[in-house]
């Protein structure tokens, strides 16, 4: 790297970082006309200071005293308007989760059982592995994320969803794209780049389906009845703007050949994580944690730093996947610096989330939504800091091309994002169906299966991958010895994956039971455990 390139990089870096801090300072200190005051006035009169237990039994007396009639009307209107579209996106997501888990489990088993179903070309590793990735990334995570955004945005803007029918049609087209895309991969018609396997002809369906969903959401935002945009809406709207641009650019056929194709490939693939699923996950956590605790997020200023630094730094980090590859040194160095700078948004978001939770961890024992979402938020902190470390050349030299990276990816996509999505679905469905989750033990079972599963998964691959990386650096170790070294860890991964898949089956059964309104017609939320207060009130319930 020549001094000229280094100086240009340094100037760009310093100017953009200082410019960003100035922007944040000016928003936080109200230089643009509204800011901190507006943030405070978000509470409707009579609501501020109410800390409410989600487990609290609803008695008509307390409810009507506490909730402003306008607030309740806006909330009801928002939920009603988004009901069908949200259910279509979430329901599809649960279906693709099952498909993706099945293919994931099969892929995992093939690592230590290579003869398994190897004589069928439809079930070879090279096809089932990308089918797993695409089913969970675009089917489960993206559809559940969009569904949650459709539910939250009308609520955040206190208005009805505009054009819910378009979002419903969008779900249909997106599902068609998923089906055709997965069939194409299974036929061997893959584009051949990770995260971009769907043929570009199929990608058009995703662009149309996504646009049919994004346009109503943007129109809804334009119709908003709030003066101040709460932090969740920044993240959700940003994700909905960023992802279509990324997806379109990276999938344009024939534009990026060779090494520049690899660069665009990883620019896109990492941005799917950072500029699509991360803002969705973080945005949902920003909504659910204060919502359930009944306390405001502790710091508006930290929210600002977290959001804007993500926007500035994330787009460049993907090239750290090409450390050691045939790309210019300055580009890789830029990406490493930005990867490390990501600790700024991660730490500020962590302080905001966990600082809001501080002193209220007891509620994790009862609220399923809070437990799933908070663990997801905690894993966001862990996986992001781990990611910053992995980008450093000294660590990358060990972890690159090992199972460690796969463990890290699942820590992000699963322990962070999927846990938050599970929590969001547990929150949303009772509001759409006016029905409580039928069976409490199934939620408990779901939680423990997926939690223990992902714990085994990540620990096994992190330890196994690290040892694998160290052995690969030793030229005297025969390659087959390294393969044998990883076998017990790969078997453990299959065990963890099987537990997670089982958890998804439990969740899907419960989801269908919810849709068909099984169980008793109850008025209490379905929690991990019934609190004492609920027992007291249960007599009141019976009397009603």
């Amino acid at each position, binding site marked *: 790297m020549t001094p000229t390139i280094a100086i240009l990089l340094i100037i760009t870096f310093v100017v953009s970082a200082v410019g960003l801090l100035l922007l944040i300072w000016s928003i936080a200190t109200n230089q643009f006309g509204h800011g901190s005051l507006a943030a405070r006035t978000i509470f409707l009169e009579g609501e501020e200071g109410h800390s409410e237990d*989600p487990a609290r039994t609803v008695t008509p007396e307390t409810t009507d005293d506490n909730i402003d009639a306008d607030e309740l009307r806006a909330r009801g209107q928002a939920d009603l308007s988004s009901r069908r579209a949200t259910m279509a996106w979430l329901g599809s997501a649960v279906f693709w989760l099952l498909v993706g888990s099945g293919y994931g489990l099969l892929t995992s088993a093939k690592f230590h059982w290579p003869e398994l179903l190897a004589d069928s070309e439809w079930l070879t590793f090279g096809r089932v592995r990308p089918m797993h990735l695409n089913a969970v990334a675009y089917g489960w995570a993206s559809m559940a994320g969009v569904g949650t955004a459709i539910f939250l945005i009308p609520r955040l803007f206190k208005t009805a969803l505009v054009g819910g029918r378009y979002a419903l049609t969008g779900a249909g087209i997106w599902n068609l794209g998923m089906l055709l895309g997965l069939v194409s991969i299974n036929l061997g018609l893959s584009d051949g780049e990770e995260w971009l396997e769907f043929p570009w002809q199929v990608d058009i369906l995703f662009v149309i389906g996504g646009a049919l969903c994004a346009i109503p959401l943007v129109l809804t935002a334009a119709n908003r009845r709030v003066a101040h945009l709460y932090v969740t809406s920044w993240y959700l709207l940003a994700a909905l703007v960023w992802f279509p641009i990324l997806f379109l650019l990276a999938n344009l056929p024939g534009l990026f050949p060779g090494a520049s194709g690899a660069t665009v490939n990883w620019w896109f693939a990492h941005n799917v994580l950072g500029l699509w699923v991360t803002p969705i996950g973080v945005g949902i956590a920003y909504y659910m944690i204060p919502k359930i605790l009944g306390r405001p997020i502790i710091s508006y200023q930290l929210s600002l*730093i977290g959001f804007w630094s993500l926007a500035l730094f994330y787009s460049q980090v993907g090239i750290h996947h090409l450390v050691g590859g045939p790309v210019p040194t300055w580009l890789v160095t830029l990406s490493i610096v930005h990867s490390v700078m990501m600790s700024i948004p991660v730490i500020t978001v962590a302080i905001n989330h966990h600082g809001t939770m501080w002193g209220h961890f007891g509620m994790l024992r009862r609220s399923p939504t809070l437990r799933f979402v908070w663990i997801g938020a905690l894993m966001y902190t862990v996986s992001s800091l781990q990611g910053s470390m992995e980008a450093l050349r000294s660590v990358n030299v060990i972890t690159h091309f090992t199972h460690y990276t796969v463990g890290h990816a699942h820590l992000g996509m699963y322990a962070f994002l999927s846990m938050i999505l599970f929590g969001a679905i547990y929150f949303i469905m009772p509001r759409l169906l*006016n029905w409580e989750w039928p069976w409490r033990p199934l939620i408990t079972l779901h939680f423990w299966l997926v939690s223990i599963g992902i714990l085994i998964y990540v620990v096994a691959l992190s330890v196994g991958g690290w040892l694998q990386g160290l052995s690969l650096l030793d030229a005297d170790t025969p390659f087959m010895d390294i393969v044998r070294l990883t076998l017990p860890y790969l078997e453990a991964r299959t065990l963890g994956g099987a537990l997670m898949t089982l958890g998804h089956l439990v969740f899907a059964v419960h989801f269908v039971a919810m849709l068909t309104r099984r169980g008793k017609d109850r008025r209490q939320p379905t929690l991990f455990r019934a609190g004492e207060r609920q027992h007291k009130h249960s007599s009141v319930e019976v009397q009603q």
Partner: protein
Amino acid sequence: MSSRDTQRAQRRENPEPSEGQRPVPRLVILWIGVLLVWGVGYYAWHIGAPLTGGDSRTAVVQEPAGSGVNGEKLFTAQCAACHQPTGQGVAGTFPPLVGSRWLLNDPALPVAIVNDGLSGPITVGGDDYQGNMPAFGDKLSAEELAAVLSYVRGAWDNDAPAIEPARVQEHRERHGDHDAWSVEALGDSFTLPE
């Protein structure tokens, strides 16, 4: 149904979330400052790093192909079936290598014979042979061919200097894809020993 029945979950909810006004902790500001300084330093530190590759790791040093070539093993694998492990050949059928002036005099001769093959009558050590030597030019690299010739020129009682791969390369460039040599053809191009 009254609205009380239709919006049960909505009724028990907390208000929509909002933000508090706690200031940014000093440690966070300090950390941002530290990272900015580190970022500038990291860029500066990479001045002088190679322009491509984007990596500072050192590749495992591999011995260049050729120096690891073992002439004796090649001889056992390719030659010993006819010329015998002792290099004595088989009387009347396969000529000996030990003491053969075709092998030991001008290095250009054995290079030509092994590379392109030899057919027709040939006299070695006073005995006549009907030559049917196959070509090895498409089987062995220049390094391998030089290694196996160097081995036989120095093995047993032989004591001729080694042959450099460059000489094999030179032969290949000059004669290209040559047919099997006859003794007459060899005589046109090289100096014959007898």
